[in-house]
């Protein structure tokens, strides 16, 4: 006699320890096997885009902080550059250098959270706290420079809110020195750990063509073996002056595009970011960081789409100006939101525990998905 079995629907989230915020996953299970996943988003919706229409251009900057709150600097950077392009402002060299250094520090900080929380998702709590302790050093650098630890409002249209702190260069160099061996330690403690490899290698494989079809960007795309990085492919600011590699997934422990690759690409990217910082930190020219800040930000009529390589992927700003002080429309192409679309595809046929490892390897930030 066949045993009658039923599908089980399991609601994971919005209050769940490892959905990285308020994501709700509707899992259709057969035992522990995933038949279908439906992500439900919108629990953190704050009407960012609509809000922008009532704000003046500089007032939008603090709001961009709150999209991907783990990479506020990068969000600021993108918005500032987008509006500058719309207005035709040319910022001076010092601003460019400081912006690049800040954005790369922010990339390291963001990846630290991604890797650390991934460890927690897999069950290793200790690397998480090690990484957070190191991230504190970056946040302290930011805090000394602009006064805030998380939501900086640092990069303005046409400049920066503060010049760098006199100690900044020295401390950043110290940090680079300090952090290099820490990456090795992380690798030994977590990346190469057999249990971790077993949990992540060959899980949630994302082939390159599927990734491209879904519009996936950022480390996830690169983990699938596609060498695509806007810092190289569509250089903005002064990224074309620096010498760095684009790490891609090679399937060292499993298949190209599996969770381990997505994890490891981030580790390698931290090394590359350190390289950029090292090259930039000694060459900061003199200058006034608020030289080009306009008294009144009032772009001419027109629209612009500008895209940037955020820690999570391609962040795009589409800004329509009607010639007034308020933007007519600010549309954000949020990398996490687009990357999230492929999630259901990746999970099918895996176990409940794998949902967590796949979600962790996507490194989504719900603040950015819902905006």
């Amino acid at each position: 006699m066949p045993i009658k079995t039923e599908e089980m629907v399991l609601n994971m989230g919005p209050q769940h320890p490892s959905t990285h915020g308020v994501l709700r996953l509707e899992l259709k299970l057969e035992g522990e096997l995933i038949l279908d996943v439906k992500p439900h988003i919108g629990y953190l919706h704050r009407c960012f885009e609509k809000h922008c229409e009532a704000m003046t251009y500089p007032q939008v900057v603090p709001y961009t902080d709150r999209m991907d709150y783990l990479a506020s600097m990068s969000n600021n950077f993108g918005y500032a550059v987008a509006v500058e392009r719309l207005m035709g402002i040319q910022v001076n060299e010092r601003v460019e250098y400081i912006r690049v250094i800040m954005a790369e520090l922010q990339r390291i900080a963001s990846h630290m959270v991604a890797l650390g929380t991934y460890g927690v998702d897999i069950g290793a709590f200790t690397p998480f706290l090690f990484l957070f302790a190191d991230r504190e050093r970056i946040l302290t650098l930011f805090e000394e420079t602009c006064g805030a630890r998380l939501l900086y409002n640092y990069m303005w249209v046409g400049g920066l809110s503060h010049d760098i702190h006199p100690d900044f260069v020295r401390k950043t160099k110290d940090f680079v020195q300090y952090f290099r061996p820490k990456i090795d330690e992380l690798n030994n403690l977590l990346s190469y750990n057999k249990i971790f490899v077993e949990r992540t290698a060959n899980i949630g494989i994302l082939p390159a063509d599927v990734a491209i079809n879904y519009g996936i960007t950022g480390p996830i795309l690169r983990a699938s073996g596609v060498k695509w990085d806007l810092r190289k492919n569509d250089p903005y600011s002064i990224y074309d002056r620096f010498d760095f590699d684009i790490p891609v997934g090679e399937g060292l422990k499993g298949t190209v595009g599996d969770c381990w690759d997505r994890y490891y690409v981030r580790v390698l990217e931290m090394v590359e970011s350190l390289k950029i910082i090292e090259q930039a930190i000694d060459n900061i020219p003199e200058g006034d960081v608020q030289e080009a800040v306009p008294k009144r930000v009032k772009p001419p009529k027109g629209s612009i789409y500008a895209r940037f390589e955020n820690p999570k992927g391609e962040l795009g700003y589409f800004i329509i100006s009607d010639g007034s002080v308020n933007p007519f429309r600010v549309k954000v192409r949020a990398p996490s939101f687009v990357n999230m679309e492929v999630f259901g595809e990746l999970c099918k046929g895996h176990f409940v525990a794998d949902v967590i490892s796949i979600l962790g390897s996507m490194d989504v930030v719900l603040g950015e998905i819902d905006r």
Partner: protein
Amino acid sequence: MKQYFINTWEGLWTVLVGMKITFKHLFDPAVTIQYPDVKPTMPERARNRLFVNMDDCIGCDQCARACPVNCISIETLKSTPDDTPGETSQGKKKALWVTKFDIDIAKCCFCSLCVYPCPTECIEMTKVYEFSEFERNDLIYKFAVLTPEEITDKTQKYDEFQAAKEAEKLAAAKAKAEKAKQDAAKKADDNPDKKAE
């Protein structure tokens, strides 16, 4: 078969490597601080609670307009020449009585956009970061120094002044009108021929 033993070896070895690292960290000094006993030091640019130096405020409303979350609300009253609010520390003449300067710190997003446009640098972000309250209303900081009596007094004064001014104006206008009338009459008297034409 070979893979089998490699797996076993890797499993045990990487665990030992990890254990070595955590064991080393066992003797590292803690990176945390015992927060309520030991306070973290704030850098000089720290952006925390807002403070307004009312002596310098001229009530220009620029900070309120710069705020992206509308947490500052300012109401002002024009002063009369005989009773002015005085001068700022930089010697700028104040023209307005600030009757209301409320900052709802619960709404504040600590972006410090209000600090930059201030012409007298009277609004600033301080290093105070502990300001929890039991009542939500206590988070609305009222900076205006005028008492309600003073406000009614000033309002009255201003109204009187305004009324006086109005009356003066009215009188002036009346006088002007009178004069114009007289002038016209005079003119008419001067050129009777023209009028006849």
